[in-house]
């Protein structure tokens, strides 16, 4: 199963655009990377509805759903990385998550999410004689989670639901620094020996959780007439990245690699949020998630004098969002059936001295009569970094979410 999913994810080209923390965990895709959430600044984990679907932060929410929701999310991201007069731009396309939720009436709602939680991706060739660059740099890291969720409304207190999810962590890491020779230290007569000798510092490994098969999120949700709240706690866990360090001349001509397992202690996450509904279809919402990192993240490094650790800081995310729900009456004007969204967020990264500020607008466009929807979000912002290593980044992204809604397993009467 793991292999199958790996293959699927490879085909869909998961990757993020930020260059911060590539040697550590990479960029975190918050709130499951859903296009609907992104449209309102990643706020609204407390917002309930018929078709809100899976929330990886608040698994209790889906208990209030009434329809089966299948949701696929895509992201096109353009990031400009800059420091003083130097800059460069990367662009990536990725698929941060796929979700399926399945309400079963009084038996609760089950769901599953495939979420790329962290990723780093670079693939560049740099050959520049003046600055003596002769290298091909590649990073492909992807930590993804298969998250089965279950939520149920309390039979005696119907406005409250409880939910839990298990996060099964998988993924792979590859780093390849393919380098040409620098013959400046050897005699000219000896240079022949290194012609065409590209050497790769190659590191490869898998991601998993140490000693456990999964980490867990537990949540409680209250749905009021106007205001809804949630609170969730996610257990801490230790990511284990078993790495093979190699020095190779080609894929078939390698040294015997040496093994090293780096361990990354990810702290518990507390999250809460509120959604306030007014005038029937207008919502404002605020979400906060917080993690206290007390240990640094060990880097892949392993050579060349690269930094051994990435220093961490307390990481938190504050989101503020607005959504005007679309009318669910088919005969209403099309513009009225669209859901409109807007939001802002501020995020302190797990990487020390890196923070992110962003804003977004979005829309949920109904497609035809068959319960299809297209979520569209446009986001932009900046990642601000201090220190010698990380550069500040400006980013702009377009997210697409394809939503299929169905009444599977339900009769007319329900």
């Amino acid at each position, binding site marked *: 199963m793991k292999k199958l999913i790996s293959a699927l994810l490879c085909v869909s080209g998961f990757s993020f655009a930020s260059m911060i923390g590539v040697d550590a965990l990479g960029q975190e895709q918050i709130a499951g990377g859903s296009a609907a959430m992104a449209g309102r600044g990643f706020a609204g984990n407390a917002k309930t509805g018929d078709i809100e679907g899976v929330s990886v932060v608040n698994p209790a929410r889906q208990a209030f759903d009434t329809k089966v929701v299948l949701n696929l999310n*895509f992201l*096109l991201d353009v990031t400009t990385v800059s420091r003083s007069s130097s800059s*460069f731009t990367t662009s990536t396309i990725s698929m941060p998550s796929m979700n399926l939720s399945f309400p079963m009436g009084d038996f609760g709602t089950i769901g599953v999410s495939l979420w790329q939680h962290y990723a780093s991706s670079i693939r560049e060739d740099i050959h520049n004689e003046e*600055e003596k660059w002769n290298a091909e740099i590649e990073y492909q890291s992807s930590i993804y989670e298969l998250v089965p969720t279950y939520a149920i409304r309390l039979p005696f207190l119907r406005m409250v639901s409880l939910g839990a999810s298990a996060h099964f962590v998988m993924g792979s890491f590859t780093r390849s620094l393919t380098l040409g020779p620098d013959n400046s230290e050897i005699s000219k007569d*000896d240079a022949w020996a290194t012609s065409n000798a590209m*050497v790769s510092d190659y590191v490869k490994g898998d991601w998993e959780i140490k000693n456990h098969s999964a980490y867990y999120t537990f949540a409680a949700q209250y749905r009021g007439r106007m205001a809804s709240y949630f609170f969730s706690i996610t257990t801490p866990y230790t990511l284990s990245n078993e790495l093979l360090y190699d*020095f190779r001349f080609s894929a078939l001509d390698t040294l015997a690699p040496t093994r090293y397992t780096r361990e990354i202690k990810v702290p518990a996450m507390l999250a809460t949020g509120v959604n306030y509904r007014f005038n029937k279809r207008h919502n404002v919402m605020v979400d906060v998630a917080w993690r206290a990192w007390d240990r640094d993240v060990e880097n892949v490094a392993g*050579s060349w004098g690269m930094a051994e650790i990435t220093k961490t800081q307390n990481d938190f995310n504050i989101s503020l969002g607005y959504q005007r729900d679309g009318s669910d009456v088919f005969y209403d004007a099309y513009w009225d059936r669209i859901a409109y969204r807007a939001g802002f967020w501020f995020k302190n990264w797990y990487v020390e001295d890196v923070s992110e500020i962003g804003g977004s607008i979005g829309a949920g466009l109904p*497609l035809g009569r068959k319960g299809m929807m297209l979520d569209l979000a446009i986001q932009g912002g900046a990642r601000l970094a201090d220190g010698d290593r990380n550069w500040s980044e400006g980013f702009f992204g*377009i997210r697409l979410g394809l939503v299929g809604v169905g009444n599977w397993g339900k009769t007319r009467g329900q």
Partner: protein
Amino acid sequence: MKKLLLLPFVALFVSSCSFDMDDEGLSHWLSDQGMPSSYKVQTVTVSNLKPISAEVLQDSRPLNAITRGMFGAANGMSIDAVFDFSIDSAFTARMKKTDSVKSSLILRMVESLYKSKFLPLDFFPIEEELKLNVSWILSEKLSQKEWNKLEDINDSVWLHELESWKTKKKADTTISVSVGRNDSLVFDLPSALVSDIRKNAGYRRLQLRLSAPEASNIYRFYGPGVYFPRFHIEDLGGNGDYVTYNAYRSASLPKNREKCSDCLILHSGVFDSLVVEFPSKPIMKALSDFYGDEFPYTKGDSNDVRQAVVMAEITFFRDDSKGSSEFDFPIMLETGSYVDSVGVAVFRSENYKIDRPRINESGHPNMVFHNGDSLALQVTAGMRDLINRGGDERSFKMVMRLGSSVVLDKDSSATYRVVTEKDTIEYDNGGKIVVDQGDTLDVFFSEHDYARYDFTSIKNKPATLKLWLASKRGEE
């Protein structure tokens, strides 16, 4: 829905068109990440390296002479030739009345050698009185069915049987050999052979072996795959009747005739190998001195990936005076080393990397029978393995063999060169050839030289190892 699915691809297309990486910005960013821009090449020389052991492994397997075979003796080795015939003695039975029956073996000489333009000026004429020992095995009488099946015997089965050849009959004879260009070689066979065949009529298998350990040349002939070696019987007395049988298969059986058991003598043309074993300690010490790190590396699984060997070259002292060759061309050495493969030491051939400036100036460094007194062999794979897994205190074992003769000794082309202008090219052995634009010249001679070379000095004269290393160590 279809349009929707297309959207991501359109987006990808747009993104790939719109943005180009700025190399300068990226390289500055990579520098700030502490990423390497190239690997620094460093060289370490380990001199005074003495082998722990050196041993010659002789090759004595019968060689299948399906396309070409060898026969004769030269440079401390002899090669016997064996031919496999199926004969029916009806013909000889008919000749019972006459005594003047002659039999001979007719071999067609290999043209690519004997008509070659690259032979030394004094190579011809080849003339000698050859003391020939002829032995044969004539089978029991066979049924026609069995006789017909002789053709189906597998070559490899036959070659295996030849390793324990048991002569039934033999006879000695002396013949005069004279090989000119474009010749066949005819050996008149002793009368005892014909008598034996005449006495034993019927369908039979005849295996015929020729040996001439005292010969001074090795003759190359075509095997049955190209031109059948023929066994010819002729009635001299009667009306000149004759019959000719074609050999189904032929083989060459090399034999080492060196007398010195302590000497390290290699023969080319056969797969003789010289295995030399060096201790790892002096190599590890030199690396420790150079890097200031611990060698061998014994942490964790002991696999050392802190650096990799890009090139390793070991240089031996060389004295050509104790060797001898047929064609007077330099002979290139092939090298290999023993490397670890899942816990088992396996032989791995070394890829020879060309040092162009050096070759153009003084010729390939890995040749014998050539100017100079050193022999530099590349042992990159072996050294890479040794340093990578030196933690288990393994030694370094290398193998060398005499390989091909080199016609263009100062040419750095891999296998052939295309001539770009009219020229006269002089070979190392004194030959000359006029070439014109467009001509293609082989760097190597097409024939094996059955040469001998004495490497005994390897035991006493220390070698020098030079390593080119790529290190992952960062700037201190």
